[in-house]
């Protein structure tokens, strides 16, 4: 397996509603894959299953570690899973409050992941935190500031810094620009694009924002009622949509 992450035949129902219906997906190193669709299409469920936070009823998710060994994500123990989530993986929540410790300073938020993997030199942790604040365009002078006093956009950038500080290879993002003003969204998307390119990150991003997907993603999956109705290179899917649902999605963006 050369992919970083490989999902095959994922299915999951909520009661009688199919949330995932035989979904398969590969993510290669350095690749940005966007999952688009309306609310309720199953895209967030897919992200939660891929990242090991939710268990599928059928199918499997495999992950290749930096040494090249392959692991079945839902068979990993809790300890291994936690370690993975703070080293080789990252997760950016839609609401930064879910990904930050609101009563811990910006520097402490970034430093937590470093300390969790064994960093014990205060000066270096702080220097690294300051460097990451700079990278996400937050004034390093605010290193001891509390996230609660930051704007929504700053909180989201802080969450990204906290996630990326341990240099993960694969990052899951759940509507990272949701809930932000349009101007703030654009700036954040630019920043994410630059970081992804600089660090060679692989990203699985869930979004209902077709424009965001076009800006960031190499590849696109269109979901509807738990199924992937269309997938392919971003430009191909958006410029020449084959499935009528995709056509509808693209048209609605153009109309808006």
């Amino acid at each position, binding site marked *: 397996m050369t992919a970083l992450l490989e999902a095959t035949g994922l299915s999951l129902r909520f009661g009688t509603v199919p949330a995932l219906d035989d979904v398969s997906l590969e993510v290669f190193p350095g690749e940005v894959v966007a999952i688009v669709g309306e609310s309720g299409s199953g895209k967030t469920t897919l992200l939660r299953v891929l990242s090991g936070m939710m268990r599928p009823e059928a199918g499997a998710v495999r992950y290749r570690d930096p040494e090249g060994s392959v692991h079945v994500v839902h068979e990993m123990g809790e300890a291994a899973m*936690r370690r993975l989530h703070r080293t080789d993986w990252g997760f950016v929540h839609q609401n930064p409050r879910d990904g930050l410790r609101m009563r811990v*300073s910006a520097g402490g938020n970034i430093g937590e992941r470093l300390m969790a993997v064994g960093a014990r030199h205060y000066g270096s942790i702080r220097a690294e935190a300051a460097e990451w604040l700079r990278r996400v365009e937050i004034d390093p002078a605010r290193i001891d500031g509390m996230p609660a006093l930051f704007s929504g956009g700053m909180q989201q950038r802080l969450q990204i810094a906290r996630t990326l500080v341990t240099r993960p290879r694969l990052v899951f993002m759940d509507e990272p620009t949701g809930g932000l003003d349009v101007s703030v969204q654009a700036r954040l998307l630019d920043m994410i694009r630059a970081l992804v390119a600089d660090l060679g990150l692989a990203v699985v991003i869930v979004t209902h924002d077709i424009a965001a997907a076009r800006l960031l993603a190499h590849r696109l999956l269109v979901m509807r009622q738990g199924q992937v109705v269309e997938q392919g290179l971003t430009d191909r899917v958006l410029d020449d949509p084959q499935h009528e649902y995709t056509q509808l999605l693209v048209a609605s963006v153009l109309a808006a």
Partner: protein
Amino acid sequence: MTALGYNFGYLDENTKRMIRRALLKAVAIPGHQVPFGAREMPLPYGWGTGGIAVTASVIGADDRLKVIDQGADDTTNAVSIRRFFAKVAGVETTERTGEATIIQTRHRIPEIALREGQVLVYQVPMPEPLFRLEPRVSETKRMHALADYGLMHVKLYEDIARHGHVAISYNYPVLVGGRYLMSPSPIPAFDNPKMDRMPALQLFGAGREKRIYAVPPYTSVRSLDFEDHPFRPVRADAPCALCGSRESYLDEVVVDDRGGRMFVCSDTDYCSTRQATREAAE
């Protein structure tokens, strides 16, 4: 049976066996909190019931018991617990650290080094070192199981960022045997280094929270710190006004209402032994 109609050491033998099983498990997994079925004791929860239960389970007729609170043998709670055991176990009691086989303590470790064969029993009000950061026991148990202690380091980081120092002066968290994060009970951080590789057996009882834990002899006990901000215990910068010691932990005594104060050893046995030695020399 003692004259009171209670079993030796107050607790019935089955309960003592249950507690000793928990103690064995605790010794086998240094620093790990073992749940146990704490019983109501005739003293209130929070007043040393855990320590009393542990002492009652390990004490034998040949033991010599010392009880200290705040380092002193004559504080009211120490007196009360010592009298309790004199009554229900009929054991010999002592105020001399060197002569005791079991020392039950609240908030201090004696100044003189303990030796092999002695047992130090700590009274623990709150065994969970993470409780201020995470109040949920189900979550802290998971954190211990996974050795997920990043949060504790975040707390130390925040202290240094804000104050330039770790702002914990007592109940300073330690890592036992390189594995379990442990509360040393509310002893001053000054006492932490005494726990490291101590020849005596250290037992911890938390009655209200129903947990027992232990540090076997010669186990490593490291106070959490950063490489560039090493652990630094503090004591009042003064000699003891009674015995002149510059090494012991000191209590501050307010002597008048005009700001007058003096410092004396908190370990009363240590202090009086030094005074006696000095008088004998004169």
